[in-house]
């Protein structure tokens, strides 16, 4: 039904079209609507019966280019109430927690019945780095529970841990006997035993479940509990992402969490560390919500997003009335707090999305001194013969005269299999060749891609060379003359690793 050649021609030519689109909730339809936009005359005829009208521009705010709008008091200032393409009649956008499964349920005796198994889990924080944590149903964080406001739910918890546990339903106003507070409201669930939680959900919003044993929390026992509202929130969003930020203390050369520590050196987003945490990919012009939960043992996270200004539209307690929404670039999310970020993805590119605490932008920190930073010294020389060792050169690099040198993180070496695994994910296709070296710890990215590029990345299996999508975005929206691709040596290395 579309003339794809003309559409492609439009997209390739890279004009920042100001057009309104009609969404019917699928990517293909969205693409179609944009294309239709090319001829303004088509616009009126394509209006849907539900009257969900989507414009390119609202009071000076454009969904397709960085813009603020004309008036801070306007409903559309920084895209505040600018709707997504999704038709509210289609219900809420599907909730996406990358790298996590959804917990299936069956209707039984008038309730949605879920089964949660508490158990030790090995989680691959980074390719090849398997860490020993606790979780649910083989996963850390646990699988996502997703229900709708008004549901009656029954959650049968099996304890396969070697010790007692109990599960707390964080934020629910439920009968006290199901609150999961260990020994205060229930007897602990002994190893091998089962406990049934059953209650009505009258709330809507961002919730989570977790073990109510402190050390087990430090071991990662948490999962999303998303309650979609019966009356879909306005304005509708096209993407509903969930990311759980966590910290762990795992000592050097260890894989077991040291829950006793007060210091934290491994950081995960949905159970994976940057750059293994999967980017959040959306389309240019979409309204995006990111729900972010800080489930770290003791650390708060100032979450910063590049390239966009977002509205804080909800916390874990409740959806915030629009009058109280606030725009931010960085939101401090405290332990056991959640925050909903909403924004119009009007600035294409691969945008850093990360905790701004310096030590949370690294993993397994070790002092970067020793042979790795010395000229002509290699750890391999030490490994070839363990009974004798190379002699160090007792003179130092003249740069050691400068206090603080070196600050560069040295030798964060990624092996070939590691690189292969990182690049094998659809969501990272076409990013700059050295992108994987830039993300560590609580760092991931939000990728805002024009329609056709989104399709190439997310919906086709065609080979997308590293850096090609990024370069294309620069070409269309930036100044390609100033663009420098990743250094060839890095490029070559990455390509070899393919």
């Amino acid at each position, binding site marked *: 039904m579309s003339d794809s050649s003309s559409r492609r021609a439009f997209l390739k030519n890279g004009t920042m079209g100001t057009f309104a689109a009609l969404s019917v909730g699928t990517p293909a339809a969205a693409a179609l609507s944009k294309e239709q936009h090319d001829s303004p005359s088509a616009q009126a005829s394509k209006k849907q019966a539900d009257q969900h009208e989507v414009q390119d521009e609202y009071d000076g705010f454009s969904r397709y280019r960085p813009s603020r709008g004309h008036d801070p008091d306007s409903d559309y200032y920084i895209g505040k109430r600018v709707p997504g393409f999704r038709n509210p009649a289609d219900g809420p956008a599907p909730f996406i927690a990358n790298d996590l499964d959804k917990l299936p349920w069956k209707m039984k005796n008038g309730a949605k019945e879920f089964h949660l198994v508490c158990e030790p889990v090995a989680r691959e924080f980074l390719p090849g780095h398997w860490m020993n944590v606790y979780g649910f149903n083989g996963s850390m964080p646990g699988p996502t529970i997703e229900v709708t406001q008004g549901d009656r739910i029954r959650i049968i918890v099996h304890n396969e841990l070697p010790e007692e546990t109990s599960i707390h339903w964080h934020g629910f106003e439920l009968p006290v006997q199901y609150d999961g507070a260990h020994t205060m409201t229930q007897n602990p669930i002994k190893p091998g035993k089962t406990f049934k939680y059953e209650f009505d959900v009258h709330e809507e919003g961002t919730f989570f479940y977790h073990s109510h044993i402190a050390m087990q929390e430090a071991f990662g026992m948490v999962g999303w509990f998303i309650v979609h509202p019966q009356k879909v929130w306005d304005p509708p969003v096209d993407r509903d992402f969930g990311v759980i930020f966590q910290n762990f203390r795992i000592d*050097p*050369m260890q894989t077991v969490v040291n829950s006793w520590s007060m210091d934290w050196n491994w950081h995960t987003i949905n159970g994976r560390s940057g750059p293994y945490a999967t980017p959040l990919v959306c389309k240019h012009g979409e309204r995006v919500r990111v729900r972010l939960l800080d489930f770290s043992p003791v650390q708060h996270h100032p979450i910063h997003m590049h390239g966009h200004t977002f509205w804080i539209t909800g916390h874990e307690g409740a959806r915030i009335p629009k009058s109280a929404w606030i725009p931010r670039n960085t939101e401090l999310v405290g332990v056991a707090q959640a925050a909903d970020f909403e924004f119009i993805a009007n600035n294409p590119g691969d945008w850093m999305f990360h905790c701004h605490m310096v030590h949370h932008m690294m993993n*397994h920190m*070790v*002092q*970067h*001194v*020793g*042979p*790795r*930073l010395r000229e002509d010294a290699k*750890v*391999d020389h*030490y*490994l070839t013969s*363990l*009974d*004798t*060792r*190379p*002699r*160090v050169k*007792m003179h*130092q690099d003249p740069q*050691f*005269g*400068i*206090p*603080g*040198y*070196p*600050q560069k993180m040295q*030798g*964060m*070496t990624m092996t070939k299999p590691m690189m292969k695994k990182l690049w094998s994910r659809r969501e990272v296709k076409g990013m700059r060749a050295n992108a994987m070296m830039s993300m560590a710890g609580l760092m991931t990215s939000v990728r805002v891609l024009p329609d056709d590029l989104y399709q190439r990345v997310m919906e086709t299996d065609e080979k997308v060379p590293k850096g090609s999508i990024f370069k294309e975005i620069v070409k269309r929206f930036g100044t390609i003359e100033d663009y420098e691709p990743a250094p060839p040596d890095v490029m070559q290395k990455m390509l070899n690793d393919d």
Partner: protein
Amino acid sequence: MSAFYFRKVLLPLVMLGGACVPQLLRAQDAFPLVPPAAEPRNVETSRDQVGRRFIPPSSFPKSPAGVEDLMKQETPQSLETDLTLDALLMMATENNPTLVQAQQQIQGTLGKALEAGLYPNPTFYYIAEQIFVDSETDTDTPGEFQGGAVQQEIVTANKREISRRKYQQRAKTAEWMAVAQQWRVCNDVRIHFWKTLGHRQIVDIRRELLKAAEDSALTTREQVNLGQATQAELHLSNVSLQRTRLSLLNAENMYRSQFAMLSSLVGVELEPQPLKGKLVADMESMIDFNQAVENLYSDSPEVLAATAKWQADCITLERERVEPVPNIFVKAASGYNHESREPVASVQIFMEVPIFDRNQGTIHQAEADLARQNAEIKRTKLRLRQDLALHYQKYLTALQHVIEFQSVILPEAKAAYANQLDAYKGDRQNWGDVLKTQREYYQLREQYVHHLITWRTNETLINGFLLHGGLKAAESPTPPGHIDSVAQPR
């Protein structure tokens, strides 16, 4: 103007001048106590208060003389040398002077045996008696008798033969002592061979430890630059570096001294050079304590010498018991009697009559000596058992350590070091911790060599009848005392 200047110059001036507080306060306002962070580096820093501004790491301490040469040495992989243990033992057999001494002790004693068995010489007299006696036929004769006499002592009761047997038996004692001396020399050569080999290895290990200390000092400098170590830690790393350098020199001195001892024992002045041999030996059978005691009692040259000496003492007693049996002296003369004017002859037979001196004192002494020697045999055995207990304990402990170092401790320490290196390579370990484990592994290797030396030394001693002291003068088999101090040995 720096805080240093303020403290050292202005403040004393103000104080000396009896200036009042307001002036001091003004001075403080004018010169802030904390200097700006980016101060030029050429300002004299040593007296600055630590931690107020960056002080570049001081230099490494100068190496003591000789360290650099030692660091340049390479451990020869294949030993192109003929200095094996057997060769050294051969050299010692030919050149160690105490073995000559021991031989001469035997010869000397055999000489005594010869002497003691010789028959006494006859005595010749010229006799002129009663000169100028008046005879009836004549007056003033040249004398009544002019002639020659021969006196011979006739030895009774087999005294000569017994004496000869006694010294021959004593020569047997000397022979056992010579055997003991051979063991002393050989054991000592072996022990110092192990020690020299071991200390050579320790020199190599200490060289590796010095490399680790140099790395550690360099790492501390890197850390100072990164704000991860203090000036104090830097100074301490210098201390550690210098001590490790000294310990390498110490090991080298130790090696040289061991080599010199070895060289002295073989009786040839050799220059330090690699030895060919292995400090580690097969451990098929462990020495059994009781078996070792049995061996000592039955085969120890010291026990055998003491027993031989006891037998000589038996003969001594036998000899002293026949001493009172009088020897018979026969004296025969022949000459001319000027009175009767004819040739005459004369015979005398006499002997000592053992009335007062029946040699009872010396017999008593010989009896006592015999009893004493009997006790000496027992004492020797017990002393050997006592020594064995000490050496066996050292042997056993060292051997137990060697086995466990070989099977568990060294492989585990090595694995820990390898783990750490792997982890460091993968950005999962601090270099300081890697160095600590490396140091520990190398120190354990050094301990292992010490255990090997102790094992082989004590094994050698136990198998070699606990004899050592290869340059101690060979002992004389002659006991002190009256019986042997007489002019003619008996």
